[in-house]
């Protein structure tokens, strides 16, 4: 008679534990993360848990969990070590996160109240998570003017600044110098007309299969043309302006490359532009600084004289897209003083130069660009010059949805034959129904 009773009690206890654990994940997020026991991200330092609200003058202490994605995640230990040298009482735990898992992992952490203290945040993710109120407001002693303005602006969510730029990237034109010369062109395209003429010449006289390679469904490639034509995603009053006359003109120009057969209408899933560029099939494309290294690796030593990069061709302006990542401090952070100290450390010009040397991420702090290591490479310097004329997508909780809708319309135009005016109207209609706030 005893055995089943005990078994029943055990069973009941088990079920109850599960029920309680279930409740915990639902309601625990209201309380600051302290209640959840183990530090998030698999902290390996038990017992060092901090006393939290240290006065700002006292030396920093405690543990700090920092999440970083992709390449940054694997190399962040370099920064963490340098930070711990300055602040010996702080233990920084770095958690590398795969970019593919980043959004899901952040969602889970926010829902479960297990957010890290500091995290890297792609500029396009700011609205998505910032609008939910997950981040702390940036303290007043971090100075906005040191950063590239467009990068700083990606941190403004609902009127508050909730993150600090960490590194930036922008898009330039990569082109084959040798093919251009064969086609009789010796200087990079300065205007939209130049770009079009160059693409035509490279295809007709330069012997290339295509003139250029533009994205069939990529808002990041379309927006620079929209901005360079004096248009924008939203107007001064914050309303969508995707079917303004400037937008229609930019779309018409963009679409003309497809209509004239200068750029491929279909790109296989998983297409890699680098070998096509080296082979000479696609002699021009727009991309970020990462292609400097990729082309160097794919082309070999004697290839370096055959290609060059150029700033965004001008219409009204020559505005390019700015991307990159920011650093944010989560509201649930148990050690906000150390967290903000880490963010400040990461945006120090010296650290920014060190970070450039470590992973070749372009500094978001303008003064770091005078560092000899950054300034010595003329190609990198060209990215630095372009960064002064850049814009970013609106910071909005609905951006992932709206950008996907814009990509859909772009695809309909570039491959499906939708008229640019109709495409602009469809984008505008999508922006109005999905919203940009």
């Amino acid at each position, binding site marked *: 008679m005893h055995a089943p009773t005990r078994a*029943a009690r055990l069973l009941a206890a088990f079920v109850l534990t599960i029920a309680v654990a279930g409740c915990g994940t*639902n309601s625990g*997020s*209201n309380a600051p993360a302290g209640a959840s026991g183990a530090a998030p991200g698999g902290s390996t330092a038990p017992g060092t848990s901090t006393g939290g609200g240290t006065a700002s003058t006292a030396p920093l202490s405690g543990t700090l969990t920092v999440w970083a994605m992709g390449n940054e995640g694997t190399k962040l230990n370099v920064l963490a070590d340098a930070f711990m040298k300055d602040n010996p009482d702080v233990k920084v735990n770095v958690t590398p996160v795969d970019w593919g898992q980043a959004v*899901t992992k952040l969602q889970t952490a926010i829902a479960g109240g297990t957010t890290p203290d500091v995290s890297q945040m792609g500029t396009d993710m700011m609205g998505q998570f910032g609008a939910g109120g997950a981040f702390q407001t940036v303290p007043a002693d971090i100075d906005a003017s040191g950063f590239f303005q467009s990068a700083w602006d990606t941190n403004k969510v609902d009127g508050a600044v909730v993150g600090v730029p960490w590194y930036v990237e922008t898009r330039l034109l990569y082109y084959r110098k040798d093919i251009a010369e064969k086609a009789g062109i010796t200087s990079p395209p300065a205007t939209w007309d130049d770009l079009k003429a160059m693409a035509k010449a490279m295809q007709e006289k330069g012997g290339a299969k295509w003139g250029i390679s533009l994205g069939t469904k990529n808002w990041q490639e379309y927006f620079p043309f929209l901005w360079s034509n004096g248009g924008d995603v939203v107007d001064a009053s914050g309303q969508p302006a995707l079917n303004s006359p400037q937008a229609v003109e930019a779309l018409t120009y963009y679409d003309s490359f497809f209509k004239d057969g200068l750029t491929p209408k279909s790109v*296989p*899933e998983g297409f890699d532009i680098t070998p096509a560029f080296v082979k000479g099939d696609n002699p021009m494309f727009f991309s970020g600084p990462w292609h400097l290294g990729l082309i160097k690796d794919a082309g070999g030593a004697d290839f370096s004289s055959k290609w060059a990069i150029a700033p965004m061709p001008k219409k009204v302006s020559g505005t390019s897209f700015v991307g990159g990542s920011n650093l944010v401090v989560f509201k649930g952070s148990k050690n906000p003083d150390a967290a903000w100290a880490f963010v400040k450390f990461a945006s120090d010009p010296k650290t920014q130069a060190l970070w450039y040397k470590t992973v070749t991420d372009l500094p978001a702090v303008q003064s770091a660009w005078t560092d000899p290591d950054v300034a010595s490479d003329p190609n990198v310097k060209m990215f630095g010059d372009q960064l002064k004329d850049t814009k970013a997508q609106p910071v909005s909780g609905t951006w992932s949805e709206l950008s996907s809708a814009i990509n*859909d319309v772009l695809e309909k135009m570039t491959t499906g034959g939708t008229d640019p005016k109709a495409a602009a109207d469809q984008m505008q209609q999508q922006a109005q129904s999905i919203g940009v706030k």
Partner: protein
Amino acid sequence: MTAPALTQRGVADRGTAQVATRQGWRRDLTGWAFAAPFVILFGVFLALPILVSFVLSFTSFGLRDLANPIGASFVGVDNYARLLSDDKFWKSLFNTIYFVVVGVPLTLGIGLLIASALSRGITRFRTAYRVGYYLPVITSIVAIAVIWRFLLNPDIGLINVVLKQVGINGPDWLASKTLAMPSIIAMAVWRNLGFAMVVFIAGLQAIPAMLYEAASIDGAGRWAAFRYVTLPMLRPTILFMLVITTIGYLQLFEEPFVMTGGGPLDATLSVTMYMYQQGFTFFHQGYASAIAYVLFVIVAVIAFLQFRFLREDA
């Protein structure tokens, strides 16, 4: 609990009845204890999420509600009403039905053909054939999809390279609005017919040989024997395969996810892919749950109809 029953019995019986009840209760408990691992896992990881997503489908649960899920607002049947006027959902539903209507008969038909050939006609290398047809079934679907993406590559893919040898300029299979879905169907049929083949072989072997003998005495040829002996005897097997394959195909996801991303121009966007997009890319979990339940109802109705029309006595 069994008090009324007890009062009707004699006093002498009462004790034994109580012992019996206790023993029964004990037996029940032992049974439940053995079943507990499954019941708990099923409850926590299957029944609970199914229930929660049903509730979610009546809310506007999204990113902003993450930190405070209880705060999500109920919107009644709004999500379902919105689905009715969502062109993208209809497009994805059309694509999925296209995939099922073409893919299921092909899979079953070719599977049955191969099964018949292997259990009667072909005797040499029979095992090698069986293994060959079955291998794709046990291979990871993502690996297969990636390989097929290469095969179908317009410039360097094996298919177009071979076509070029015979003078045909192969199309860009996966980038064409009209050819992308047939390409995916071809891959799915090739991958799944192995399972159909194995089940059909088992079904064919269960048909008594004397039926065929009787048929041939009655003057039935090969086709007549197939039509009047094999098919009727195989009916339960066909029904089983039809239901299993239809349900599986209605949940088309990995193939377009890996090979086309739903494109070009949504030509291969399936219902589950659209659901994934809404639920995990845009985090409209309420809306995605509504899509899931609509798909669930469609699966249930189709399975019910198939049972109805293919029953023994139908």
